[in-house]
């Protein structure tokens, strides 16, 4: 999981925005629309990042409809020290 986190969050083109998304939903769960607003990103971009993050079990969503809110997954909670280490690098 550490390797996945480092790769998805720091070694891909969208890594930096994925870190910002993770930090934002750690504050409180949000849906894709709210994330796009808050981070000033295109809705489709946010959707794509959330799909990648979900595919790698980094985030989980509350349900399958459009209003679904996203939050850090249970699994990522167990590796939160790694996430914090990564986040510290992009203050």
């Amino acid at each position, binding site marked *: 999981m550490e390797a996945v986190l480092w790769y998805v969050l*720091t070694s891909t083109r969208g890594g*930096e925005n994925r870190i910002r998304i993770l930090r934002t939903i750690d504050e409180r769960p949000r849906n894709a629309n709210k994330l796009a607003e808050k981070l000033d990103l295109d809705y489709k971009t946010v959707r794509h990042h959330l799909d990648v993050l979900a595919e790698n079990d980094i985030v989980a969503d509350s349900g399958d409809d459009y209003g679904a809110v996203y939050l850090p997954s249970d699994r990522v909670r167990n590796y939160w020290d790694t996430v914090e280490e*990564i986040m510290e690098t*992009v203050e």
Partner: protein
Amino acid sequence: MVVWVDLARVAVVVNMALLASLIFVWGRNYYRLRSKHTLGPLLFAVLLFGENALALYFYLLDPLLSVWFSSQVPAPAWQGMIALHVLESVALAVLALVTWD
């Protein structure tokens, strides 16, 4: 008559282009994060780029080797060499795909 040395040159240039796209992403991420986890992939890509640049130099510019590669290397040897270059191209394409996603 296939000019094998040209195929090899093309494969090596493709590798260099794929590596350049990885160096771009990983270089930008290293510049922003400055962590050893982002430095590792960048160094890997830079060194592999150097390897391919050296191969291209041998195939294209080196006064002794380029002549030898263009005229003295038999087809079966080239086919083996090109298989190595093309496998590397496929490997790098896979890496570029997930990195750019």
